[in-house]
């Protein structure tokens, strides 16, 4: 409770500083809207459904792309960890592409797929895939060989070992890879939505983009806040419980 109150206080102070800056009129109100203006925009956007629609469009793209990235990345990571050939080829490729900022995929996606959903998905998948591959491979490589040996003596064999021993043993690495993949996917999708103005759906990134076009700063800031909140919620609802479980089981943290 005390922690919650402290956090609440922190954000209240942040709002107050913002309000004070607005009132000091150092910058034009066009550039620095008041918290109230932003709140009014958000309320309006929430009431007329723009916000919900954009959020759904964005989340749908994100989830589909993310899941494709995971489903493809996990087995690729296992393969690169298991066989040298895969490590030298796909592993090296993954390592290289993981370092590529995912926004760099946008021009290529635009030329290949045009202004379509496919372009969006492609960018999100490219953002997710490689970090999942790398994390899975690293995780598998860090599994102490003794686990495998112990499992062998208990009668565990190839596939059973992979699914019941190596995969769970690599889980802490895989989860941090999933988290990183999620962050990359989120970033790349926003970049894609800002650059790709397609008609099949208006995402949060596009709202951001039009906020700029219309010089509607309260919209820009409002949408940015929504994006931040979604990121926080994803962490708190999805990743945080998994990480807590891992920490408790592995004993890696006191929290």
């Amino acid at each position, binding site marked *: 409770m005390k922690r919650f109150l402290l956090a609440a206080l922190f954000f209240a102070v942040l709002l107050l500083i913002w309000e004070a800056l607005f009132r000091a009129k150092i910058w034009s109100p066009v550039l620095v809207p008041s918290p109230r203006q932003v709140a009014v925009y958000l309320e309006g956007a929430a009431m007329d459904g723009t916000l919900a629609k954009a959020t759904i469009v964005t989340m749908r793209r994100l989830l589909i792309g993310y899941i494709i990235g995971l489903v493809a990345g996990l087995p690729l990571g296992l393969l690169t960890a298991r066989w040298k050939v895969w490590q030298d080829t796909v592993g090296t490729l993954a390592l290289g592409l993981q370092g590529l900022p995912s926004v760099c995929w946008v021009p290529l996606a635009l030329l290949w797929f045009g202004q379509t959903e496919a372009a969006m998905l492609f960018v999100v998948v490219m953002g997710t895939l490689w970090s999942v591959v790398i994390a899975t491979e690293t995780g598998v490589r860090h599994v*102490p060989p*003794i*686990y495998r*040996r*112990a*499992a*062998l*003596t*208990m*009668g*565990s064999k190839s596939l*059973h070992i992979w699914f*019941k*021993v190596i995969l*769970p*043993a690599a*889980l802490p690495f895989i989860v941090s890879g999933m988290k990183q993949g999620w962050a990359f996917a989120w970033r790349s999708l926003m970049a894609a939505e800002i650059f790709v103005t397609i008609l099949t759906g208006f995402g949060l990134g596009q709202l951001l983009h039009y906020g700029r076009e219309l010089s509607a700063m309260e919209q820009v800031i409002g949408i940015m806040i929504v994006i931040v909140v979604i990121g926080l919620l994803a962490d708190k609802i999805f990743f945080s419980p998994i990480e807590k479980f891992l920490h*408790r*089981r*592995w*004993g890696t943290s006191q929290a």
Partner: protein
Amino acid sequence: MHLARRHHSSATEELQVIAPSKLAIEGVSKNFRSASGDVLALDRVSLNVAEAEFVCLVGASGCGKSTLLNIIAGLEKPDSGTVLQDGKPVTGPGRERLVMFQEPALFPWLNVFGNVLFPLKLKPNLTNKDRHDVAKYYLELVGLSRFERANIHELSGGMKQRVSLARALAPNPRMLLMDEPFAALDALTREQLYGDLQQIWKARNKTIVFVTHNVREAACLGDRVIVFSPRPGRIREEFAVDLSRPRDINSVDLAVHATEITKALKSHSQPELATAE
């Protein structure tokens, strides 16, 4: 006749004390290639272990005793020679010969109960209820019933090895292979485990091959103590320890045996220096 015969064995059947294995090792050699040249880890080692016998292998580090254990386990292949368990050649690892390692090698993603359950899940003819009953029985046997829901990292070193022992016993193997399982524990915990292990060995009637570099430990646990010498790894001498059980590691009689074995160990442990240099 037996139309109503059950297709799975029950927990009580599973918990029955079964006949222990005998082991025949014939002329086993193993070479390791290392940066400084070939090392003959085992040189034509032969050894017989009788049913329900507790045999300890002692020797300085690098004498090949752990390698021999891994070969018996089926985790490594010998360059030559054979290992027969009950007359059948050992071709790979399997639950007839369960291994306890120096590290507990417990799985941190499972709790204590899940770890003991792990080998039981690999036994196809049991129902889940039977598996649970069997796991509970062995956790009770090693005195850890109260900790079945605990996470591995919450246990002390001694408790971890107890869980490891329960896990090794759970699938009811005919033979246990133990590779310095108590080496990393403090003296007090170890003494307790010596007592418990002797009791469990009697109760469950297992054949045990136990590797250690601790002579007292070997004299305390073994019916027979086999002395190895390093480079090349060879069996040099063996001692029968005919003290009554359960044995106390601090007893004077035991110390007499230990002194004798230590003497032998020392006389054989001068490594034969490589002639190349």
